[in-house]
């Protein structure tokens, strides 16, 4: 136990780490490109949020909870099978509850906080990081949730898969972004992607499973204590008790 905490303390002193693309590590052209891609989603996201809060002001607390969930999970750097650390994203929950556009704003806010105060990620790379974590991830979560609900109707499996796969996809996208910006001299984009995905995506596998489990946990609480809110969001179908268990 002593060595373990020693390890954690020592590694905590290492400069700048985590998983977003680091400040200054995307060439200016690519940094600008991802900003341009991400901006429309952010604008639509703000509109979506104002629409939600205008129509149902009572949902504001649940919205805060979805944002807070992302806040907590992206602050937890967990050890992984590759012997390095990364953190989950927490965007799946909000995407399923409020739709992916709402998450594009909440996720970006988290990234801004980390870029400004933690030197984690960065402002030049914010567009790219927002695209992977706050846009691609939530959209994937939203689609996966609805796909599995249509196929099986098992809500908890749908939630788990949505959260876990959104987390994983976030880092696959990060790997794609880095590979596009840094194609290998031999083997080009594919060779680079294999290298980056080997770091980011593999590290993320157990974390994605953890994120799926935690998202189901919060979902269980919401189902027990705030069924009205879920009903407003049309996420509860009056279903027999047999579907309740995982």
């Amino acid at each position, binding site marked *: 136990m002593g060595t*373990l905490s020693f*390890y954690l*303390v020592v*590694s*905590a*002193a290492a400069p*700048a*780490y*985590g*998983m*977003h*693309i*680091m400040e*200054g*590590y995307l060439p200016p052209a690519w940094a600008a490109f991802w900003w341009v891609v991400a901006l429309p989603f952010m604008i639509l996201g703000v509109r979506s949020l104002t629409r939600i809060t205008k129509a149902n002001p009572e949902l504001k607390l*649940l919205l*805060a*909870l979805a944002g*807070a*969930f*992302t*806040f*907590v*999970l*992206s*602050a*937890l*750097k*967990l050890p*992984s099978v590759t*012997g*390095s*650390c990364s953190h989950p994203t927490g965007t799946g929950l909000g995407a399923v509850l409020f739709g992916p556009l709402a998450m594009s704003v909440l996720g970006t806010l988290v990234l801004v906080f980390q*870029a*400004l*105060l*933690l*030197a984690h990620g*960065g*402002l*030049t790379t914010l567009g790219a990081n927002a695209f992977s974590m706050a846009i691609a991830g939530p959209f994937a979560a939203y689609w996966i949730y609805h796909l599995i609900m249509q196929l099986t109707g098992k809500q908890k499996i749908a939630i788990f898969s949505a959260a876990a796969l959104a987390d994983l996809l976030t880092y696959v996208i990060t790997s794609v972004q880095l590979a596009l910006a*840094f*194609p*290998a001299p031999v083997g080009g984009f594919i060779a*680079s992607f294999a290298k*980056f995905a080997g*770091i980011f995506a593999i590290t993320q596998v*157990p974390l994605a499973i*953890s994120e799926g489990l*935690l998202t189901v946990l*919060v979902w*269980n*609480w*919401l189902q*027990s*204590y*705030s069924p009205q*809110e879920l009903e407003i969001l049309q996420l509860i179908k009056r279903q027999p008790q047999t579907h*309740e*268990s995982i």
Partner: protein
Amino acid sequence: MNQSKQGITNWLLLLGVIVLSVTPLIFIKGAEFGGADGQAEQVIGEIKPGYQPWVKPFFEPPSGEIESLLFSSQAALGAGIIGYAIGLYKGRSQQQRNKE
């Protein structure tokens, strides 16, 4: 209401997360458990030797301690809001049940 069954499920979910997090620490000997993006920096160095970041972060935590303070503040803030919200919902649902 199968509240107790639900409770057990929730503890199992938490247990799963703990097992997933602790296992690498136990089984992967000699790993540094640094950040994944540190490794990415190395790979960029291999692919494009001499690449220099063209901007510096606007503010860097002056030490590992300050950085962990900021990270734990982030987690605490988020956890506080989640606890508040779930607690509020729970109290509200119990009140409704008492009325019925």
